[in-house]
C-alpha cells in the first residue's frame, strides 16, 4: 500500500517540476522569486477553498456549493467591515459559511438526499442571496488591519501561504490522529462496513459538511483581503480549479483515499498551469477549457489507478 502512495507522491512532484522546468525554459521570468511567490499565493487561495472540500470528498461526498458559499460569506464580511469591528465581521462570515455547510450536512445525512443535488441547490441559493445582498455592487477598500490576511508578508512569505501550511498541518492531524478523521476515511471507504461497526455516520457527515462551509468562509476572508474588494460573483470560477486540485492531489472521488497533503500539491500544480497560461499569454478564453479538461483527465487517471489496484 505504501509503495503505491510513495509512487503516486513522486509522480505528482515530478509533474510539478516538469511543468516548472518547461515554463522556466519558455519564459525565464517564470523563475523569478516574485513569480514563484505569486504562484504560491495563488495556490494558497485554491488550497484554502479546496481543503474543506477534500474532507467532504474523503467521506465520499461532494460539495458543489463551496465557491458560492465563499462568495456569500465574503459579501457579508465586506458589508459588515464598513460599520463593525473586524472581529465581528469575520465571526459573522465564518458563522454564515458554517451554517450553509450545516444545512447541506443535515439534508444529506438525515433526510438522505443525494449530496450533489443538495449542494447544487445550495450553490444557487447562496449565489442568489449574495446577489440580493450586494445588489450587483462592489464593496472595496477595507481597513488596513483586515488586509493583513491577504496582502502582507511575514519574513518574505505571504501570509496566506503561511496559513496554507498551518491549515494543512491541522487538517492532517485531525484526519489522521482523531476519531473524527478516522471515521471520515471509514465512511468514505466502505459506508456499510462503517455503519455496521457503529461509526456515527450522520454526525460525521454533518461535521464534514459544516467544516467545509466554515473553511469556504475562511478562504473568503483571504480572498477579499487580497483583492481589497468584494462582489457577488467571486466564487463562480473557483469550483473547477478546486476539484482539479483535489483529484490531481490523489484524493479519490470515490472516497476513503487521499488527504490534504496531496491537495496542496494539486493546488500548486493548478496555479502553475494557470500562471503558465498567463505567462505564455494564452487567450483567457482557453482557461476554462483547459481546467475542465484537467478535471476530466485527472478523474480518469484516478479511476484507472483504482481499477488496476483493485485487481491485485
Amino acid at each position, binding site marked *: 500500500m505504501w509503495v503505491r502512495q510513495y509512487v503516486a507522491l513522486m509522480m505528482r512532484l515530478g509533474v510539478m517540476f516538469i511543468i516548472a522546468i518547461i515554463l522556466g525554459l519558455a519564459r525565464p521570468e517564470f523563475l523569478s522569486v516574485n513569480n514563484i511567490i505569486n504562484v504560491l499565493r495563488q495556490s494558497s487561495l485554491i488550497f484554502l477553498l479546496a481543503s474543506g472540500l477534500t474532507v467532504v470528498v474523503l467521506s465520499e461526498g*461532494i460539495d*458543489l456549493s463551496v465557491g458560492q458559499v465563499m462568495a456569500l460569506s465574503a459579501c457579508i464580511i465586506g458589508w459588515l467591515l464598513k460599520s463593525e469591528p473586524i472581529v465581528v465581521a469575520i465571526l459573522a462570515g465564518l458563522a454564515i459559511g458554517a451554517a450553509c455547510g450545516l444545512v447541506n450536512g443535515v*439534508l444529506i445525512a438525515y*433526510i*438522505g*438526499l*443525494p449530496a*450533489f*443535488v*443538495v449542494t*447544487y*441547490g*445550495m*450553490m*444557487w*441559493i*447562496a*449565489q*442568489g*442571496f449574495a*446577489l*440580493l445582498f450586494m*445588489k*450587483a455592487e462592489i464593496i472595496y477598500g477595507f481597513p488596513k488591519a483586515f488586509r493583513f490576511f491577504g496582502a502582507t508578508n511575514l519574513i518574505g512569505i505571504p501570509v496566506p501561504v503561511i496559513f496554507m501550511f498551518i491549515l494543512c498541518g491541522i487538517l492532517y492531524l485531525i484526519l489522521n490522529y482523531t476519531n473524527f478523521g478516522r471515521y471520515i476515511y471509514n465512511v468514505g471507504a466502505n459506508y456499510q462496513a462503517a455503519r455496521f461497526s457503529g461509526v456515527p455516520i450522520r454526525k460525521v457527515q454533518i461535521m464534514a459538511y459544516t467544516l467545509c462551509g466554515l473553511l469556504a468562509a475562511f478562504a473568503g476572508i483571504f480572498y477579499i483581503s487580497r483583492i481589497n474588494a468584494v462582489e*457577488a460573483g467571486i466564487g463562480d470560477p473557483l*469550483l*473547477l480549479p478546486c*476539484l482539479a486540485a483535489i483529484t490531481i492531489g490523489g484524493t479519490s*472521488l*470515490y472516497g476513503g483515499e487521499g488527504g490534504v497533503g496531496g491537495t496542496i500539491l494539486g493546488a500548486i500544480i493548478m496555479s502553475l498551469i494557470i500562471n503558465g497560461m498567463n505567462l505564455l499569454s494564452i*487567450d483567457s*478564453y*482557453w*482557461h*476554462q*477549457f*483547459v*481546467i*475542465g*479538461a484537467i*478535471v*476530466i483527465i485527472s*478523474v*480518469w487517471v484516478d*479511476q*484507472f489507478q483504482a*481499477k488496476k489496484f483493485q485487481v491485485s
Partner: protein
Amino acid sequence: MERDKLKKVFKKIPAAAFALLFLLITCSLISKHFWTTENLSNLGLQGTVLAILALAQTLVILAEGIDLSSGPLVSLCGVVVAVLLHKGIGLPGVILVSILLGAACGSFNGILIAKFKMPPFVVTFGNMGVFTGLALVITQGSSIPGFSEAFRFIASGYILGFPFMVIILVFMTLVTYVLLYHTTFGTYVFGIGGNQEAVHLIGVNDVFFKSAIYGVAGSFAGVGALIMTSRMNAAHPLVGFGLEFEAIASVIVGGCSWTLANGNPWGSLIGVATIVVLKNGLNVLGIPPAVQVAGVGAFLILAVIYDTLKGK
C-alpha cells in the same frame, strides 16, 4: 380499501402539480396581467427550450445520472450554428450539424461515464468548463448577431396558427415518449436506472446504452440551441448558463428520482411549467432575476425533501 387507493393516487402526483396549482392561484391574485394571451404566450416561448432540455434530463436522471453540461452545450451548439450560418451554409446543413454536434458532445460525456465509470456529476461538470471554454474561444467572448429570415422562422414562424417552436416541442415530447415506452432503448433506460448490474448480467451491452442515453440528451440540447439562437437572433457564448440548473430543477420537481428509475416525461413537463410560472410570478413581484435563482434552488431542495419523505 378506498383510502389505500386514494393514497396510491396521491402518491403518483408529483410535488410540481400541487405547486403549480398554488402558483397559478397566487399569480392570478397578485397580477391582473397573468392570464392575458400576451403573458401566456411569453411563458410558452420561455418554456420551450427549457422543456426540451428537461426532456433530455429526464432520460439521464431516470438512468441514475445527471447532466450539468447541457446548458453550456446549448451555448456551444448555438455558437457553431451562428458561425456556419455566417459562412453561408444552408439551413438543413446547420440543423444537422447542431444536432450531431450535440450528440457527439453528449456521447463524450456518456462514454466517460459508462465506459470509464467516472461519476456523472464530475464528468459533466468538467465538460461544462470545456464546452463553455470552446464557445468562448470560438466567439472570442462576444456575441454573433443577425441571421436570415429562413433561420428565424424556427422560433418566430407559425404553421396553421401554431407557433413552429411549440410544434417542435410537441414533436420532441413524442420522440421522448416513443423512445422511453416503445423501444428497447427505453426499456434499458429504466433498467439501467433500476439495476444496472442486472441489465449487464442478462447480457445487454449496458455501456453502449448508457453512453447512448447521454448522446440522445446531447442531441436534444442541439435542437434547443437551434431554437434559442433563432429566437434571440444572436448566439452568445454564455447564453445557456444556468439553463441546465432550471432543467434539472424541473425534472426533480416533476417527481423524477434517482432511486429505482421513478418518474416520467409528463411530470417533467409539469415541472417546467411550474418553474416558468414561478419565475414569472417572482418577476411580477419585482424580484431581481438573480434572486429568482435562489428561489428555484430552494424549491428544488424542498421538492427533493418532499419526494424522499413521501417515499418513506
